[in-house]
């Protein structure tokens, strides 16, 4: 007979695994990856591969030679960070900047906090903001999307729809004057607009989100509360003055809104643990995003909004507890 194992209950384990969750996120990003390659060509592929490979490489180097602990690069978390980083930069970003971004994401935002599960801020967003502040020109020169079939060497760059609106309104133009310069909603949906690699196609992002909901990797609370807040907030402004404020649909479909709502704000590690807290978190991200978009210096505010809310997650966790069993008020007991 074998040696008997003696351990505490439970003696069975479900099929949840960190690895399965991480690769689930990777699968959910496939539609957006395909769209980015379709519109931005081989350059997108270059950034995707480079960001993923260097994220994994830096995690390996740090775990093996700096921390000298177990190497966990196969758990998929570095790969997720790498792809998300690629999604958050323009497809024509120089290779060395992509590598720097991966080092910041893994080294500074993740490993220096203690590795997987310990980081306070979303690693890919930390890297994006680092790059945006360090290399503002390269980080905001957006190649215009063209399908691969239209030619591979596309060097035309242009502003994002959010940039057009921000600059236009600042220069005194009205929304109706800006309209011809903006992509149509159909173009927003499929991804025919300027922007970071992973944020252009609403449909691809929503597909990924639905897949993660189905796999129970994310819950609806953060994306829905965040997007609903954006719709209400921008809806009010637009209702008051449609000439100086963009409409809610525009805000939903442009920039990093959907990428942020579906893939960045929902990051398990850096978002609240209870549904109540998640809703508050989503509302906070939504409000901050619009404040930055409309009154801030940058045309886009999703990254900053998420990072700011990441910082208050511990507070939210303290304030929002799950509904405890037994909290329901007492009952009338009928005596027989």
């Amino acid at each position, binding site marked *: 007979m*074998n040696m008997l194992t*003696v351990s505490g209950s439970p003696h*069975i384990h479900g099929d949840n695994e960190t690895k399965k969750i991480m690769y689930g996120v990777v699968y959910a990003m496939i539609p957006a990856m395909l769209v980015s390659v379709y519109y931005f060509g081989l350059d997108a592929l270059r950034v995707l591969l480079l960001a993923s490979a260097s994220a994994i490489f830096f995690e390996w180097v740090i775990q093996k030679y700096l921390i000298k602990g177990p190497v*966990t690069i196969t758990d998929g978390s570095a790969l997720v960070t790498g792809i998300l980083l690629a999604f958050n930069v323009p497809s024509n970003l120089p290779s060395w900047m992509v590598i720097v971004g991966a080092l910041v994401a893994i080294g500074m935002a993740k490993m220096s906090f203690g590795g997987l*599960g*310990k980081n306070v801020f979303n690693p890919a967003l930390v890297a994006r903001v680092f790059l945006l502040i360090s290399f503002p020109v390269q980080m905001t020169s957006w190649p215009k999307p063209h399908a691969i079939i239209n030619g591979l060497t596309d060097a035309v760059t242009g502003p994002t729809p959010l940039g057009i609106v921000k600059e236009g309104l600042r220069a005194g133009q009205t929304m109706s004057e800006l309209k011809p310069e903006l992509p149509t909603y159909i173009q927003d949906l499929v991804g025919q607009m300027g922007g970071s690699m992973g944020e252009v196609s609403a449909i691809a992002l929503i597909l990924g989100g639905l897949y993660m909901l189905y796999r129970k990797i994310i819950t609806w609370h953060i994306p829905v509360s965040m997007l609903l807040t954006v719709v209400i907030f921008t809806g009010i402004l637009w209702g008051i003055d449609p000439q100086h404020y963009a409409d809610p649909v525009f805000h939903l479909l442009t920039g990093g809104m959907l990428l942020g709502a579906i893939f960045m704000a929902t990051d398990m590690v850096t978002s609240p643990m209870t549904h109540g807290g998640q809703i508050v978190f989503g509302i906070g991200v939504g409000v901050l995003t619009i404040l930055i978009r409309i009154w801030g210096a940058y045309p886009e505010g999703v990254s900053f909004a998420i990072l700011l809310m990441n910082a208050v997650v511990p507070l939210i966790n303290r304030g929002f507890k799950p509904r405890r069993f037994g909290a329901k008020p007492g009952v009338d007991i009928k005596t027989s």
Partner: protein
Amino acid sequence: MTGRLKTFTLGGIHPEENKLSAHVPIEVLPVPKQAVIPMGQNLGAPSKPVVGRGDQVKVGQLIAEASGFISANIHSPVSGKVLKIDNILDASGYKRQGIVINVEGDEWEESIDRSDNIVEEITLDAKEIIDRVKQMGLVGMGGATFPTNVKLMPPPGKVAEYLLINGVECEPYLTSDHRLMLEKGKEILIGTKILMKALNVKTAIVGIENNKPDAINHMTELAKGFEGIEVQPLKVQYPQGGEKQLIKAVLNREVPSGKLPIEVGCVVQNVGTAYAVYEAVQKNKPLIERVVTVTGKGVRKPSNFLARIGTPIKDLVDAAEGLPESTGKIINGGPMMGKALTSLEVPVVKGSSGILLMQENESRRKPESSCIRCSKCTYVCPMGLEPFLLARVSRVGNYEMAEREMIMDCIECGSCQYTCPASIPLLDYLRLGKTMVGAIIRNRKKN
């Protein structure tokens, strides 16, 4: 069954059911050669032996008596000679006091009605029923082994409105309650009637999960002949067999934190207990045997045995055609809440619902990795707790915070650990925290 099936609303999981022995009728296991009867078979104080070495005992004879309010009598499950009263290994893994009896024949106390006829008429009054239940050493048969008579005596000022009979059997693999409902359904319902009389309640509800449609149909059919007894089918969800979850599922009432079911007018008894009540009250038979499931993926003949208390588990395993080569873990109870055993010599006790033999390849825990703060443990906790947080503060010894975060509400169902993608042994830490916080609370009360 119309509309959505009832269930509890907070948390819960649905592990693979693996009810391998659901269609195997209960088989009477031969009397063992030697019976080993631990004194600590019930929740509360262990029983005190009233026989001595060399004494001749009959089946059903009192051999140990309750040593406090929350304690229970023990009767000899066999006839023969007391070999010794000594420390013996029980399911806890510790050696504790027990009575060892060398079996000679099978001679029963004459007061016990061993005939097959079903006695329906209840002649005892409420007080007599409670006394009989106490005298016959009945404890909760679902595994918690709380003395049954104590549950039948609500504290002053509290009244019972409903009696819930627990036929949920939500633990994977186990089928002893299922078989008992199919084969002793009528006796269970008479037992329920007896309990209703003792508690003076008008309505009893038998809760059964709908992975046992045959038991639901059978019990529903039988219940037509019993006034005030209803059968409530429930959606399959673990841990619905927990008292608080069952009450929530059936009546949508929530037992407040730290309180007993009587707080919301309920008393919950297991179907096995209802059957034991029938036997004790109508047949004058003490609790000396019970149905035990022997199961597992490698087991050649998954079975349900009617075994005498004190029978070594080895006898049950042998009757199920032996211990499979591949066995890596032996569990007393189900896979979610059962206890891993160190030996096959451990005897069947009043709370033994099953023996699960797990194969080597399913015996070990998966390696632990970092918490990714996915919240899954929080989503599945049926008590609305945050297991990740409780485990973390227990690990570092912050028991003050553990208490504030209501660690004592944990029912140790294991759903958190089952669902953790990082395979963190959450319940190990929670048990540690509960033990420490429990001690702190007891100390505080003393001062």
